[in-house]
């Protein structure tokens, strides 16, 4: 099955990959069968997961095409590994143990490759990015209560955080209604323009 994540076009590749990796991991948790293959693309955003569909489908539609990881890494600038703070490590999927690039293809068993245009609920993250380069804060002031916590339902226009750039406090605002699924950046962290800060899921109905 595939999902198209709602990632702003200006999101840098490294963040995209990280997010896609997380998306893939989340999808794996919901699979009806054991995973056979994971494919992550960052160019036009794509997460693809193949799983064993159980006895009914076994033996049909074995895809057998080789697992490739070039889709994921295509277009990623060859980085120059300059020093400890020279950006992300490209191929380790970041702190969340990101995607397994060479999806563990299991022996035996046919593959059912569900391709649905409609993303699963909760699988296609909606991201709220940093309005400026600066320092991200979750609260109005040190020690104050955070604007939001994971699980909160937020309305469009609600303030989620602050990015401070040269003593200017720039609010981070929800651009749609939703439930706060994840806060992607720790308090007091330096962020770049457009870097995803919050993930909104569909609001609880």
């Amino acid at each position, binding site marked *: 099955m595939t999902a198209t994540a709602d990632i702003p076009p*200006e999101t840098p590749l490294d963040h995209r990959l990280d997010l896609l990796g997380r998306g893939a991991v989340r999808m794996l948790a919901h699979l009806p069968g054991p995973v056979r293959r994971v494919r992550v693309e960052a160019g036009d955003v794509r997460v693809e997961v193949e799983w064993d569909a159980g006895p009914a489908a076994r033996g049909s539609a074995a895809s057998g095409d080789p697992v490739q990881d070039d889709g994921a890494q295509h277009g990623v600038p060859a980085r120059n590994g300059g020093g400890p703070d020279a*950006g992300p490590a490209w191929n380790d999927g970041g702190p969340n143990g990101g995607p397994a690039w060479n999806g563990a293809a299991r022996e035996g068993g046919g593959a059912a490759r569900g391709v649905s245009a409609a993303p699963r609920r909760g699988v296609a993250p909606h991201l709220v990015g940093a309005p400026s*380069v600066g320092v991200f804060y979750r609260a109005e002031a040190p020690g104050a209560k955070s604007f939001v916590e994971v699980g909160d339902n937020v309305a469009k226009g609600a303030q989620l955080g602050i990015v401070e750039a040269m003593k200017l406090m720039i609010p981070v605002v929800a651009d749609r209604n939703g439930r706060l699924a994840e806060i992607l950046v720790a308090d007091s962290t330096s962020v770049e323009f457009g*870097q995803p800060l919050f993930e909104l899921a569909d609001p609880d109905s």
Partner: protein
Amino acid sequence: MFRTVLIANRGEIALRVARACRELGIRVAAVYSTDDRDSEITRYADQAIHIGPGPVRRSYLNLAAIAEAARMSGADAIHPGYGLLSEDPDLAEVCEDLGVTFVGPPPDVMRRLGDKAAARALMRGAGLPVLPGSDEPDADPRRAADLAAAVGYPVIIKAAAGGGGRGMCVVRDPGDFDRAFRETTASAQALLGDGRVYVERYLESVRHVEVQVLCDRYGNGIHLGERDCSVQRRHQKILEEAPAPGLPRELLDRLNRAAVTGALAAGYVGAGTLEFLVDPEHRFHFMEMNCRIQVEHPVTEMLTGVDLVHEQLRIAAGEPLSLRQEDVVPRGAAIECRINAEDPERGFAPAPGTLTEFDLPAGPFVRVDTHCRPGYRVPPAYDSLLAKVVVWAPDRDRAMARMRRALAEFHAAGPGVHTTTEFLRSVLDHPAFTGAEHDTSVVAGILASRSSGHPG
């Protein structure tokens, strides 16, 4: 020397500065806008920071974003390149506040030289010849008109905060003065955020000659010779060369010495350029001083063997000048052609697009400074400069031959892409240029002869 330099610029100059940093063992931090996310500098740098969306006001001209990027990268210096914030005293001041070294002159020196009327007064005080005109900007059209009459027509009305050919207007007839004055004031206010203008005598048939200087923090200053930038279209330089051809060496030596005197009188620090006009009687007149590395700096590098960006960084790091005047020995002749993504057939309108084909010249004594590569999409929002082709040869004739050869090897094409390559070749074949008898009107002459169908 610095540990990390943040380059607050884009395009070819960002790469040029990054290369100098690499050679000096300095870590490179780059900034980029959304439109530049696939640019070469983001790959080349040790760290690249996304500072905002495409429009320069929200990214490369956004002081807060640049300052945050400096903080994030741990930079101990900011190199501003040319254009953008390179001559913004506010950036130099913000750097002081942050405890980061600004690679350029002190903010007060930049402020004084950035006001063209103040710069004229300063240089006149230092004994340099300055064209007759206002000593300070005047907002009163009547007084300005009286001054214009006293100076003698034609006059040029210039924005005090102008540069790069913006905010100027030539007036030949006293009857047109009032309207031109009001229009220039209004456009300077709109374009530059500063409506102050001043009046200066306008010279016809002049050569535009500028001098590269280097000054350290300890009152030492040298020049690296002159560059001739007379090949211009609407005050935009197209081709630059050194030495200035067809002018007496004695005159040029005096001009070079005057430039050092003026720079030291201004308290200048770093690499700077003083621009002069040389009239048909071979008198020179100070025009303005630029407080940054210039687009055409490679011409001087080819002639002298001095890496100007290295020198900028050394001076900014507090080192005394490593060169004495007698150590600077210009040899041979160098020419630079600026190749722009513009369509000469349509009034040099920007013609950006995707460079599906991009072949660069090579061979002995040819240097190409570019940020483009095959497949690169030239962003429409920025400067149209694609590449600078620079050649060196033992004399001017051989340099022209080498440049013709290099331009013939240059090939850039793609949907929507037009370049000025062919036009540059027509300049190099123009008899007035090859005979070094040209002046700043040479391009207008070539274009006029083209449109009338006569060979130029």
